């Protein structure tokens, strides 16, 4: 039973772990910890929403817990999401998934967590604030800062990008 569940979701969840982790070893730890949590709490799944979504949330929470000490969030009040130009980020669309992942992994744990949760997973700033124990404003400013850093990385890697 456990083995079947692992075989069904391990590839997807390992992708999630690699997005949040700093390196492969840490991703392996989160992966192991996450599946143990899934097996221990499987009776708590009430059937509300998709099962994959429930498992994914467990893995995201596990990854956040794993890096809570490393994540240092600063409120950058002078930057807002609206001020960030998103045109340079569009350059990521033309890249292969592994290359995108490598670029995102260059972000610091704090930026990466907020970027992944908001941009990729679709969490609201309110939800991110609750999960990370920060204010909504901090979540927004962290995201803005993450985007700025990403644009810089993209600018240096791909000189032809405006």
């Amino acid at each position, binding site marked *: 039973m456990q*083995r079947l569940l692992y075989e069904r979701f391990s590839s997807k969840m390992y*992708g999630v772990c690699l*997005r949040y982790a700093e390196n492969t070893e840490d991703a392996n730890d989160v*992966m192991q910890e996450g599946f143990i949590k899934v*097996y221990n709490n499987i009776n708590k799944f009430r059937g509300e929403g998709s099962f994959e979504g429930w498992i994914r949330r467990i893995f995201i929470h596990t990854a956040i817990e794993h890096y809570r000490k490393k994540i240092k969030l600063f409120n950058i009040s002078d930057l807002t999401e609206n001020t960030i130009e998103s045109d340079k980020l569009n350059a990521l*669309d033309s*890249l292969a998934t592994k290359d*995108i*992942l490598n670029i995102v992994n260059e972000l610091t744990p704090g930026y990466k967590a907020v970027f992944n949760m908001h941009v990729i997973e679709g969490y609201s700033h309110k939800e991110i604030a609750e999960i990370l124990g920060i204010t909504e404003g901090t979540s927004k400013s962290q995201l803005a800062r993450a985007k700025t850093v990403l644009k810089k990385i993209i600018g240096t890697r791909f000189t032809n990008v405006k």
Partner: protein
Amino acid sequence: MQDFKEKLYNYETPPPEEIWHHIAGEINDEKVIKMPRHEKNKIVFYAIAAAASLVIIFVGSVFFKKNSSPKYSSQIKTDQQDLLLAQKIKDSAQLNQQILESIINNRKEKKEIVSKEPNKNIDSKMYLTVAGPEGQPVKISPKVATLIISADDGYPPKPLWSKEIRKWQKIMLRNTISPTSANFADLVQLAANKQMYND
């Protein structure tokens, strides 16, 4: 922009195989402790020694119990007693047979047996003293000796005697008690039996 979000959201890659082993070990709460080789050998040696000791103790206890069992020893005692008694009966039967045959075949010997104690009164000469089934002395008339010999249907055949004895046996078997000369009632019964025999 949407494209790169979807790419990252759906990103899949197979995890290393060792992760499952760790998870399985954690689920089953298996803790594998690697031991040095000599430690393993030591444990195997102790296990074999313990098993051998247990086997020796078990076999020894079974053997000891069997030998020291009171039931077993009393059984042996009873068997020995039975054997002795059977031997005694067999011996006395053989002796009886020899005496009776000698009486029938040798008149002189018969006289010797009869007159064992010459000082006793003259009535004793009228009886033979033979050993009973359990070795006890039994007095019988010399005339009856021939009857007893004939009762076993042995060789040579004695059809007349055998017929008479069977008749007497039938009469005796009709009685619920075996009459003896010890009391008056038995004497009456014996007389009645004799009457039946004569009839």
